[in-house]
């Protein structure tokens, strides 16, 4: 059974390590915050200028001066801090963030990612995504394996305008966990009961399939 969006977030959450500072992009990545393993010390950064984000506020407790990069109202946890955008992106550029999770329109063999523009159709802007992917050592993509038309979002070569090159390390989709290697995509894990042939069929480009591919285990 393929993963749903919350399952993808749960699987990504398994990548968290104690003491990680994490930046979560808009969409599926945001859900990762709901599945932090207990006993791990994790802090979430938002690039508009906050470290130590907590859950959304209860109704009536929202504050117009407290938002995340998705413009959602937030709260902060003990140990939080506020700062300007230059400092915020300094944290990102200076590799102080341990894990960045982003959504994507396309990811390719070389680790390039496209997630900010569809020429003549959709121009939302790159926001902080270009800074994040160019800077962080540990970039993970959380996305559906295929687009609405069933086409693979994993590509031999991205067709859309790029957000960054040689940056993605790992992709978690509804079907699989796939690493970027110098020989292309490497299948690491498959969703429970999802057939490897189905993954191969829905993946454009070279997918390296080891002899044994473990099943994704969700808690």
């Amino acid at each position: 059974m393929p993963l749903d969006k919350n399952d993808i977030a749960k699987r990504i959450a398994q990548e968290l390590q104690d003491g990680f500072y994490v930046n979560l992009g808009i969409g599926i990545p945001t859900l990762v915050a709901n599945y932090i393993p207990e006993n791990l010390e994790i802090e979430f950064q938002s690039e508009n200028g906050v470290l130590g984000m907590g859950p959304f506020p209860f109704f009536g407790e929202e504050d117009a001066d407290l938002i995340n990069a998705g413009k959602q109202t937030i709260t902060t946890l003990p140990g939080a801090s506020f700062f300007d955008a230059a400092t915020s992106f300094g944290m990102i550029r200076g590799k102080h963030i341990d894990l960045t999770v982003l959504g994507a329109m396309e990811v390719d063999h070389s680790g390039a990612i496209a997630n900010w523009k569809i020429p003549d159709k959709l121009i939302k802007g790159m926001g902080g995504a270009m800074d994040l992917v160019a800077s962080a050592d540990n970039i993970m993509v959380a996305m559906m394996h295929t687009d609405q038309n069933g086409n693979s979002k994993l590509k031999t070569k991205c067709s859309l305008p790029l957000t960054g090159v040689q940056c993605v390390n790992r992709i978690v989709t509804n079907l699989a966990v796939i690493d970027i290697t110098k020989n292309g995509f490497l299948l690491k894990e498959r969703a429970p009961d999802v057939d490897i042939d189905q993954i191969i069929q829905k993946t454009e480009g070279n997918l390296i399939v080891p002899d044994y591919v473990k099943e994704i285990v969700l808690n």
Partner: protein
Amino acid sequence: MITKTIAGISNALEGIQSGMTIMLGGFGLCGIPENLIKAIADSSLRDFTCISANVGVDNFGLGLLFKEKKIKTMIGSYVGENAEFERQMLSDEIEVILTPMGTLAEKCRAAQMGIPAFYTPAGYGTEIAEGKEIRTFNSKNYILEEAYKADFALIKAWKGDYAGNLIFRGTAKNFNSIMSGAAKTTIVEVEELVPAGSLDPNEIHTPGIFVDRIFQGGYYEKKIENLTNRDH
């Protein structure tokens, strides 16, 4: 002490002319110079080049300037929340220059701090890098980016004193502190204006030297763009 106070919004816009380049602090609707934006929207001024991270929503924030067709060129980073802006962009009524948000922030900070140019990795290998110098430091590729040049910076702070010292609140600091002093003239509106000496010098986020004019805004709506609550 050097006094930066002005009587109010009526004197604030002095010197701003059509066609100028204007920086605006804020992120979406958070920490935007509401009163200054409204005053410009109501004025006969037009054809601005605006530098701002986002573009507001249809009827608030920078959106008011798009609605009144005040903006000729928009330099920003994320523009996904404003239908009127999108319409003007797709119909080529306005020129749009998109910049990685961290690069935008650093270009403001560079202007403020007298750094003419710096290298950043953001956008290497993408269309953002086209026509720009690429350079390798420690086996990594970077793009040369230059400081912004702007005529006016419009800033919103939480508290300010007569000397122009500013304190921001929460995530409303965002681009406000780094745009202060990044333009030839910096105009600041605050929710609360206090006498110099009222603020602890250790708690000041932006020293008054980066500010040219300061006044207390008449009214703050402080709209929320994306109200998100959790269940009890």
